[in-house]
């Protein structure tokens, strides 16, 4: 294929999905590189050399690139797209390297989406779009029937959601967050303000768990047993405390049955119970909530809020979805069927607590206000909402 001089993050994600071969030259500083990197269903060979090393000794820089990645095709990336573009233009392309820059760098990589219609829902009375924020492993949903839509866990980049709604001619009935997110900033309150549709959150999650302060955003109370209608379909609310105290899942009854699990059950893992600072108290609740979900019919299609590894969790058609019955067999974190064993396993396998998660919850609760740059910085990196299972091998 023709190697361009610039690719958007969406184009890069598509190249990775198609398995197009190229090497990655990451020119960020050490600290940023260690924090996270470009990954995908086919993660390419990556060479890391900070751009400032090219200033010191251009020829040594060029030889290392050639030795590791050849003369191309190479994708150069950095934090915001400026330094990698400079390296491509000033250093590598003049020497005949086939090198492209990723526009906007890792910041844009973490704020880009691929939107896919769930094929199972094509023949149904209800259609479901999965918005895949691939750089961070966050999943968001639009559920639509007869011109009406319900948004589930909408992301901060609300324009992407509004574009989809206007393209499909959909009116928002309700905006739901499965829980108060710790890893990313919710688009719920902003969408409610923009469109006038009500924003729902479980009241237990309207209190910041660390600060123990009430949220300063308007929201309507989400509760067990509530039913939302959307066109000819209905969405039932299940209160499943564990990851948070006000954690919920939504069961959608179309011709098929779909379960939006948010941060409870993932394809290859389960959610961690400690991000509210009370892992020991919440892990048993989490166990009982998961058991409750697992008693739903085996053909229920699970649509999770996150993934950790696209290579291991993504289907061939690009979607992150699986029938509940299959997860019972294949999800390693569901193997322990006794509460005590599950709780001690989960508490012994907690990944590191990302310090910025406390502030992200503050932003989501309206207790902290930041400008765009501050929000971008808080959201850098992949989500770490799952238990270790999906992480140990990736």
């Amino acid at each position, binding site marked *: 294929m023709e190697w361009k001089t610039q690719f958007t993050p969406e184009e890069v994600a598509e190249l990775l999905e198609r398995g197009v071969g190229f090497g990655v030259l990451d020119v960020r*500083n*050490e*600290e*940023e590189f260690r924090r996270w990197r470009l990954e995908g269903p086919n993660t390419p060979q990556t060479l890391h050399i*900070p*751009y*400032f*090393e090219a*200033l*010191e000794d251009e020829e040594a820089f060029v030889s290392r690139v050639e030795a590791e990645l050849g003369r191309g095709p190479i994708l150069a990336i*950095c*934090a*915001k797209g*400026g*330094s990698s573009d*400079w390296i491509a233009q000033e250093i590598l392309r003049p020497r005949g390297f086939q090198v492209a820059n990723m526009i906007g760098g890792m910041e844009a990589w973490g704020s880009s989406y691929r939107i896919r219609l769930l094929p199972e829902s094509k023949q149904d009375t209800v259609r479901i779009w999965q918005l895949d924020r691939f750089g961070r492993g966050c999943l968001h949903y639009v559920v639509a029937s007869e011109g009406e839509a319900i948004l589930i866990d909408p992301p901060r980049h609300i324009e992407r959601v509004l574009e989809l709604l206007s393209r499909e001619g959909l009116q928002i009935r309700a905006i739901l967050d499965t829980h108060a997110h710790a890893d990313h900033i919710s688009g719920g309150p902003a969408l409610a303000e923009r469109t006038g549709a009500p924003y729902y959150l479980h009241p237990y999650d309207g209190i910041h768990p660390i600060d123990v302060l009430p949220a300063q955003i308007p929201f309507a109370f989400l509760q067990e047993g509530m039913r939302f209608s959307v066109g000819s379909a209905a969405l039932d609310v299940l209160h499943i405390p564990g990851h948070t105290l006000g954690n919920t899942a939504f069961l959608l009854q179309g011709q098929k049955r779909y379960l939006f699990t948010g941060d409870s059950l993932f394809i290859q893992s389960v959610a961690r119970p400690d991000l509210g600072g009370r892992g020991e108290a919440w892990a048993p609740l989490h166990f009982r909530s998961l058991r409750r979900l697992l008693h739903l019919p085996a053909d229920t299609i699970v649509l999770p809020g996150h993934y950790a590894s696209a290579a291991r969790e993504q289907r061939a058609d690009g979607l992150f979805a699986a029938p509940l019955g299959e997860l019972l067999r294949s999800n390693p974190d569901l193997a322990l069927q006794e509460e005590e064993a599950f709780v001690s396993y989960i508490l012994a396998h907690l990944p590191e607590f990302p310090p910025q998660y406390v502030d992200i919850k503050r932003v989501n609760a309206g207790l902290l206000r930041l400008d765009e*740059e501050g929000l971008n*910085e808080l959201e850098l990196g992949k989500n770490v909402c799952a238990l270790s299972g999906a992480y140990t091998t990736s």
Partner: protein
Amino acid sequence: MGEIVVARELDVRGLQCPMPLVNAHRAIKQIAVGEVLKVLATDRGSLLDFKGWAETDDSVELLQQEEYTDEQGRRVYVHYLRRVEP
């Protein structure tokens, strides 16, 4: 830390990465060994980049980094770099 005597000041406010560092790299070659270059940048990424640069380039020592808000309301990141004998 006592008062730092600055031999040269480089104002790269408003410039995006990589230009603050590219210009600083050029400027530090123009001062004598032992002298200090002060760089004013508005690119927040410069904090980690200048730190990384000083770690990999043994002719540069990063003495100090500080922040303030300038008269135009921009957040400014200040870097003090000493040219040293490699």
